[in-house]
């Protein structure tokens, strides 16, 4: 997972978050985040809207003060790291100022940093050569995102932070964007990006941190995380069995009785299926379906019911 294995004493990690908390009024948006990202890692912060991803990123960048907890980037405070140009970021929202061409805008932003990346280089990596002379107001949505990415890159950062970079893009532009990102990350940079698309996290990150309800609920490789969010449902005709008994089967997160049939929501449907047939040979009309990511998130976040979520995570831990 960590691409920077070395025998030397390890340098400070790119990101170190320690028990971060942040509330907005009565909303406890971030409820204790601990996260360490080594240099060179590409990490996806995956979670549904309202999971606390943006608040975490804003605290990481020093844009939001945490109520408690600490942020350390390359062993320094967020502000120091930003001032040195070690961190580039593309925030979730934000437009471009008018009346400058793409090249002028990048030159202007680059001039603020101690060791900027040459503008021609940024234009090439971000795929902006064709629109270098265009004013920001005349760019398409995809081109605007590329320019914003270029601005994030112009400081020549070691850490790139992207908050839902493709949220406003269509499928084609999204694909293009990740191609660009790949070219950037290929040079051993550390990347942290927030997304609510599992596919994006899967395709691009070597590590996925799953957030829900302001907490990290899972942290691991794409395969590990997919097994958490790849919830399947098993439907079977099985009268006269108590749903509590079914709930106790391995891999079952929830059991629902619907007349003659039962619906089991599982995070390990294979294990459930085997156990189900052994325990209840009478079960028939079996049907296994993959649930969508949204359903999976609902399952994990348990509609805000923390116990359900913790329960499921514990089961997940146990089944590993």
């Amino acid at each position, binding site marked *: 997972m960590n691409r920077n294995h070395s025998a030397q004493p390890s340098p400070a990690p790119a990101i170190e978050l320690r028990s971060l908390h942040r509330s*907005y009024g009565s909303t406890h948006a971030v409820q204790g985040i601990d996260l360490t990202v080594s240099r060179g890692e590409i990490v996806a912060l995956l979670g549904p809207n309202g999971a606390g991803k943006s608040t975490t990123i804003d605290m990481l*960048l*020093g*844009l*939001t*003060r945490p109520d408690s907890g600490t942020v350390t980037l390359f062993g320094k405070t967020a502000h120091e790291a*930003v*001032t*040195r*140009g070690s*961190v*580039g*970021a593309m*925030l979730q*929202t*934000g*437009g*471009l*100022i*008018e*009346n*400058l061409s793409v090249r*002028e*805008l990048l*030159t*202007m*932003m680059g*001039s*603020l*940093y*101690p060791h*900027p990346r040459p503008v021609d280089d940024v234009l090439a990596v971000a795929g902006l050569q064709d629109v270098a002379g265009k004013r920001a107001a005349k760019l398409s949505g995809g081109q605007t995102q590329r320019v914003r990415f270029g*601005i994030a890159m112009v*400081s020549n950062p070691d850490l790139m932070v992207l908050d839902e970079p493709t949220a406003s893009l269509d499928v084609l532009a999204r694909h293009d964007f990740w191609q660009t990102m790949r070219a950037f990350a290929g040079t051993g940079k550390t990347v942290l990006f927030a997304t609510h698309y599992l596919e994006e996290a899967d395709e691009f990150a070597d590590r996925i941190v799953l957030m829900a309800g302001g907490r990290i609920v899972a942290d691991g490789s794409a395969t590990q995380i997919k097994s958490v969010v790849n919830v399947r449902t098993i439907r079977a005709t099985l009268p006269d069995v108590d749903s509590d008994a079914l709930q106790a089967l391995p891999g079952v997160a929830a059991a629902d009785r619907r007349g003659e049939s039962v619906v089991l929501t599982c995070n390990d449907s294979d294990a459930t299926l085997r156990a189900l047939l052994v325990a209840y040979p009478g079960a028939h009309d079996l049907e296994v379906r993959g649930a969508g990511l949204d359903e999976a998130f609902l399952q994990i976040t348990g509609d805000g019911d923390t116990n359900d979520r913790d329960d499921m995570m514990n089961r997940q831990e146990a089944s590993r």
Partner: protein
Amino acid sequence: MSALTYAKYETVRTLRNVRFTAFSLVFPLVLLVIVGGANRDEHNFLGTGISFALYYLVGMISWGAMMSVLSGGARIAPERQLGWVRQLRLTPLSPGNYLGTKVATGYLLALLTIVVLGGVAVIGLGVRMPLDGWTRMLVLVLIGLIPFAAMGIWFGHALSSESVGPVMGGTSALFALLGGSWGPITGNTGFVHDISQLIPSYWLVQAGQSAFTGQWWPAKGWLVIAAWSVVLVALAARAYQRDGERVAA
């Protein structure tokens, strides 16, 4: 790393912004050419011994310069809304330098307005003034702009990008009218005259007129400008701080 490059592109951006240069430069210029031009043969305006063109020139200069520095700070409002201020917080640019550049570009625009209007008046309208008159005017106008520069920053932080334009237009029109930029509205005595002496734009117009009256501001003028500067800088600082808390919230 160069703060100059940043300032350069800020300036380029300002000059390309037609909406702002229209108010600070083009409107005063057009009025000067039309109204001043139509009355160019009036050489003893209101018995002052001053030509109408010269009298009108310094009024337009005070108005255009006021709009220039106001708009310098007011441009913060759309940049806040755009998320650009947040983006800049991810750079080494300090808040002080950000505000300083806004004030500086406002002043630059004001200087441009003064030079262009003055040049057109001299070349096209036959206005003549001794060098010390120009110098005195320039010095006093630049000082008299301080409260308006602070007002621009205050508006930029306290208002949304939708409301900043109308508020700025209305406020500057009111100050221009009451101060006498568009022509005298009071005599040299009376209640209205006493009131108008308490507003900063009156002294901005006096700063312009110092070019031909040969007089620096009296103590009252310095006091009024200083008082408005203190109040508006405090308001701007408070709005900036509140806005910073919102950005950081």
